[in-house]
């Protein structure tokens, strides 16, 4: 895989990205480039800008890009609405998936899947075709079909919510999946299910960003690159060894890499 990488065009390019919310600058020049098939981990202290970065890529309206560029397969995505970004293949797995009472999970998944399929110029699925598809994908996250009849995330346990995110990722087959602390709040069994789900979905055409605090997810899914973020910037990039070093020494050890200027 590594040898091919050089010939591939990057899927996602983030170039000198600045962003703010409510006049507070949160991202201060982020650079990252992800090729197809790569798995990147982003680590860093709480409040360093990891979640903000993921929301900005997905187009959250509370944040404003004040400088730099985000490109998906060479196209600037800034003018795109969140739904257009999703349709073109950006997926954000939320740290705290929100509950939406009254809206059936099944209907939601079907509408979302068809929106993506429409963009890909694939035929939209009717109720029956979709049920077949979703049952197949449920296996990946070991969820019961009864799960589909409930309202979106309503009354789901922490683990169920995260598995529902991975189910969505499986259905939408994104180009770039950003998984924001998908491992947080999971017990060991749930973590294994989620991690194995991600591995099954990952393929050579898709790039994955794992935002995490913990080595235990990275034990399950070995990243190609590990980035350490601090103060709105990526201050150090390495391979999976870097995560182990962080685990041993803590974030204080990376403070020396912060550009004081």
């Amino acid at each position, binding site marked *: 895989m590594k040898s091919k990488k050089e010939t591939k065009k990057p899927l996602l390019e983030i170039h000198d990205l600045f962003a703010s919310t409510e006049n507070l600058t949160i991202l201060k020049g982020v650079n990252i480039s992800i090729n197809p098939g790569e798995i990147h981990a982003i680590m860093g202290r709480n409040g360093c800008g990891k979640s903000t970065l993921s929301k900005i890529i997905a187009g959250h309206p509370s944040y404003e890009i004040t400088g730099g560029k985000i490109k998906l397969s060479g196209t600037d995505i800034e003018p795109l609405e969140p739904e257009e970004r999703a349709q073109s293949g950006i997926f954000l797995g939320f740290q705290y998936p929100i509950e939406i009472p009254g809206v059936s999970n099944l209907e939601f998944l079907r509408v*979302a899947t068809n929106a993506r399929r429409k963009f890909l110029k694939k035929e939209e699925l009717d109720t029956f075709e979709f049920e077949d598809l979703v049952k197949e994908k449920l296996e990946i996250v070991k969820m019961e079909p009864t799960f589909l009849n409930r309202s979106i995330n309503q009354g789901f346990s922490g683990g169920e919510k995260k598995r529902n995110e991975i189910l969505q990722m499986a259905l939408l087959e994104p180009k770039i999946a950003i998984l924001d602390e998908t491992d947080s709040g999971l017990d060991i069994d749930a973590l294994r299910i989620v991690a194995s789900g991600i591995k099954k979905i990952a393929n050579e055409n898709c790039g994955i960003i794992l935002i995490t605090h913990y080595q235990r997810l990275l034990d399950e899914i070995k990243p190609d690159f590990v980035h350490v973020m601090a103060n709105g910037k990526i201050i150090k990039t390495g391979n999976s060894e870097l995560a182990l070093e962080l685990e041993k020494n803590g974030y204080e050890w990376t403070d020396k890499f912060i550009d004081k200027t």
Partner: protein
Amino acid sequence: MVNDNLVDNIVSEPYKYGFVTEIESEKISKGINEDIIRLISSKKNEPEYLLNFRLNAFKKWQAMEEPDWADLGYEAIDYQDIIYYSAPKQQEKITSLDEVDPKLLETFDKLGIPLTEQKRLTNVAVDAVFDSVSIATTFKEQLAEHGVIFCSISEAIKDHSDLIEKYLGSVIPASDNYFAALNSAVFSDGSFVYIPKNVTCPMDLSSYFRINSGDSGQFERTLIIAEEASSVSYLEGCTAPMFDTNTLHAAVVELVALDDASIKYSTVQNWYAGNEQGVGGIFNFVTKRGKCLGKRSKISWSQVETGSAITWKYPSCILIGEESVGEFYSVALTNNLQQADTGTKMIHIGPKTKSTIVSKGISAGKSSNSYRGLVKIGSKAKGARNYSQCDSMLIGDKAAANTFPYIQSQQPNSEVEHEASTCRISEDQLFYLQSRGIEFEEAVSMMVSGFCRDVFNQLPMEFAAEADKLLSLKLEGSVG
């Protein structure tokens, strides 16, 4: 909040039924007094008993005061500034649809209620009411084969006076409340339905109320009687043109269900709601009540209330017969400066009576939306049960929602359950749906219809489609 404006745009879709039909009308002079009431009665060639009914109601009305307990604010209504009778000028005696003014037929065509034989809806019989008079009733003959009477109330007063004398005012007496008394004095037209014993009405019946004139009120009166072991599903729709003045609509609907009979009454109310500044719109003061007289009888109200500047409406059930059942399913959507104070009364008198209340209020813009409901369990209603669920959804941060539940029980052996909730469409919920590729408008509409699902499931098929269309009219539009 970036998205709040977008939500506002979506729910502010312009009113599509706001056109005026240019037609010559016969109007009487403004104001209300005994002479006016005699004039209305004589225009309709009414029998003596009905004139007395009206005059008696007028006396009671004069002695009453306009209620002010609802959570509504509006400028005082000048009852002398209203025209109480307005009818499109046409031939005296109309025997077939061919004689109806084409402009009127065109109007109902435009509203999606075609009346002519070639175009009319095949599965629903329609009584079309234009201002103060019924224009046409479809499928009358076919229904008559089953013994079903479906006609305008004016016709029923002439042709079925035994039934009218027996039941008119038997559920809602003239003295019931201010607006019911006013209606009893001046009501002009409306629909009459009689379902004989053991008959299941072969098709849905429907009334469509159209207010066309800007300065006249509409005071229609509907009476539905379901004899033993009969059943009927009745649908009601209403629209009005856009005027910058307020038009008063004070209707009375009475339902009577005998042993084992069932009546399902569904409304989609889309009167003109006024503009964004709250100018104009219909003042909708309506008294609707059903009497479950018979054992195991059932009356079910479902309503989708989206229009009117002011809505004051409490479709209720009086559960007299043993094991009778009352139901109320309501969606009320208010936007801009609309005000709605709506709900129900479930009066349990007979033993083992049951009632269900599901109310969904959606408030957007600067509107105010209140649920007001009474559940009363009388001393003889042993084993009575009620379940109430009242949910409110707020869109934006300037709308208001209130819930006023009243529970009175004189019977220890009874059960009353009440659940209430309030939620808001949050930016994060919308973003969640959008981030899965779902368009903003569709996301809002999914959340709103998800919220209303329990009620929509209760609407008859023919109507569910219309309600859906109506909500999407209000919820779709130009984004951004």
